[in-house]
């Protein structure tokens, strides 16, 4: 995810002591540690391990799990975004992981953060990304028999044509 633009350059000096153990453990992840925001992009296979390491480093709350569909503008197509929060250090960390379109699966964070139960179901429902290891991977917002995943970019917004009373005469 090197093309993500932020208004700051990655710092050259050593990272913050809170996050340093995790940075050392996952050196191959793309870290962007600045004064205002901490971002990291990992391979999806490492997502669960990284989350567990972050939890042990003090990020005890998983605030949010969502996804972005880059459709044709980026590869891999999907990106799972996890927002972590540390109450004790008063810091946020945003973890992203790319997910290819032909195999949209990610290891679930449920064993690490049980609070991702609903949001992971929401991402599955709206994007069709399956979280492996989630205890209840079912639709949550859409009806159970719905076809397709609405927040994908190739799912059209749809509209109901309005038919006025005299419209057939005009044409």
């Amino acid at each position, binding site marked *: 995810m090197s093309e*993500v633009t*932020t208004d700051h350059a990655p710092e050259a000096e050593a990272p913050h002591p809170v996050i340093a153990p995790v940075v050392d453990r996952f050196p191959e992840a793309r870290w962007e540690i600045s004064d205002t925001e901490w971002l990291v992009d990992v391979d999806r296979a490492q997502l669960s391990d990284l989350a567990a390491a972050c939890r042990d480093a003090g990020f005890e709350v*998983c*605030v949010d799990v969502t996804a972005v569909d880059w459709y044709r*503008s980026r590869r891999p197509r999907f990106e799972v975004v996890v927002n972590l929060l540390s109450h004790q250090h008063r810091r*946020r960390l945003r973890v992203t992981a790319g997910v290819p379109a032909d195999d949209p699966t990610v290891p679930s964070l449920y064993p690490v953060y049980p609070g991702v*139960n*609903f949001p992971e179901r929401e991402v599955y429902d709206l994007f069709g990304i399956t979280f492996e290891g989630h205890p209840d991977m079912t639709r949550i917002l859409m009806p159970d028999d719905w076809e397709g995943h609405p*927040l994908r970019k190739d799912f059209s917004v749809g509209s109901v044509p309005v038919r006025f009373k005299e419209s057939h005469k005009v044409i």
Partner: protein
Amino acid sequence: MDEAPGRTVSADQETDTQYVEEWVSGTEVPDEMATGEGAQEMALQESGYRFREQLGAVVTDDYLYEEEVSEDERMIINMGPQHPSTHGVLRLQLELEGEMIKRCKPVIGYLHTGMEKTAETLTFMQGPTNVTRMDYLAPLHNELAFSLATEKLLGVEVPPRAAAIRVLMTELNRISSHLVALATNGMDIGAISMMMYGFRERELILAFFEKTTGLRMNHNYIRPGGVAADLPPGWRQDVANILKTIPARLGQYDDLLKENPIWLSRTQGVGVITAKECRAYGITGPILRGTGVEWDLRKVFPYSGIDQYEFDVPVGAHGDVYDRYRVRVEEIIQSLRIVEQAAERMPKGDFRADDRKVTPPPRARIDESMEALIHHFKIFTEGFRPPPGEAYTAVESPRGELGCYLVSDGGGKPWRCHIRAPSFYNLQALPVMLAESMVADTIATIASLDPVMGDVDR
């Protein structure tokens, strides 16, 4: 089968003996035991032991169940989605064992209208119109989260007056939202007066909102770059009236509920959750503070200059329904403090950023300036184009952390607009709170969560 003599009908008697079913009055057998007391008479014909037991002279426990209730005794019932106390279209699947809740599963999605998908078809300028309809009890907080995210993408700073107006309006909105929470919480447990009182005071604030924004709800008032309009003439009088009225009315609520024994027994020790569970399930807002965690985004990650105001973060201790109720009452008092300070030190100046690519020009300039007319036209037809990037901003809504994750690809519309809805996450606390509790406490617990289904389903 032992039948009375004379009633037996055998095959050979069938022709000459007929069994009469009709009841002819006067033919009843006289009851030797009958007295004038009729049915109220104590049953003397039972054994003497049973008689003494009924008198209380002998105590036995043979009526108690000795054997364990088997798994088959469990019952699964639906509560909702059309239920007056589920605060919208929330459906709960409850697995009961007698009166005890063993498992609970919230079923949501009945109010899903795809607002995040809709947001991708609206410009950044139209975005607040959409997000304000999510949490319809705290619409200004939704608009604020979206506007802050857009401003972060754009790199725009709002002038001090706009920030102060935002603080004033969102804190008033917090009061009105908490008043509804108290009102519905009271109504669900049976304190009907509380509902009347809560909605009465909320009306004061909604009237001020209508005067300022034009609408009682779904204001579309806080927009990227500032606010839609300046405060109306006479706003100081209205705010002073609110500041004078509500503290006195809060005293009435305390008289009604604070030490009411029925209220205490229905709320204390009910729906308990611990701080550790709150962190594990991503629960924020008054529920988290009710467990004793002093976590308020206004203090930790301040926005709109709210760190310049003096206020405290009220916390509970036990994490039960009563503590959440107290936290909400105390937060109303703290919000009143902020409103008072905001009204006192309301800075002069413009109410929106002086960036003509982001905010529309003043109405008077359109008549005299060609550039102003072009800017006005461009903003309202195609909006503005933030640089590509991602921004996550969070505000402390009455229900907890309300976040907005915006992704821009450089176009005029958000590539992705995700709202981190606090009610959606707080609802996950319900199975934790309801496990091994009584059915009747479900109502009190749901009300103390204060879920807004528009926020949950989006």
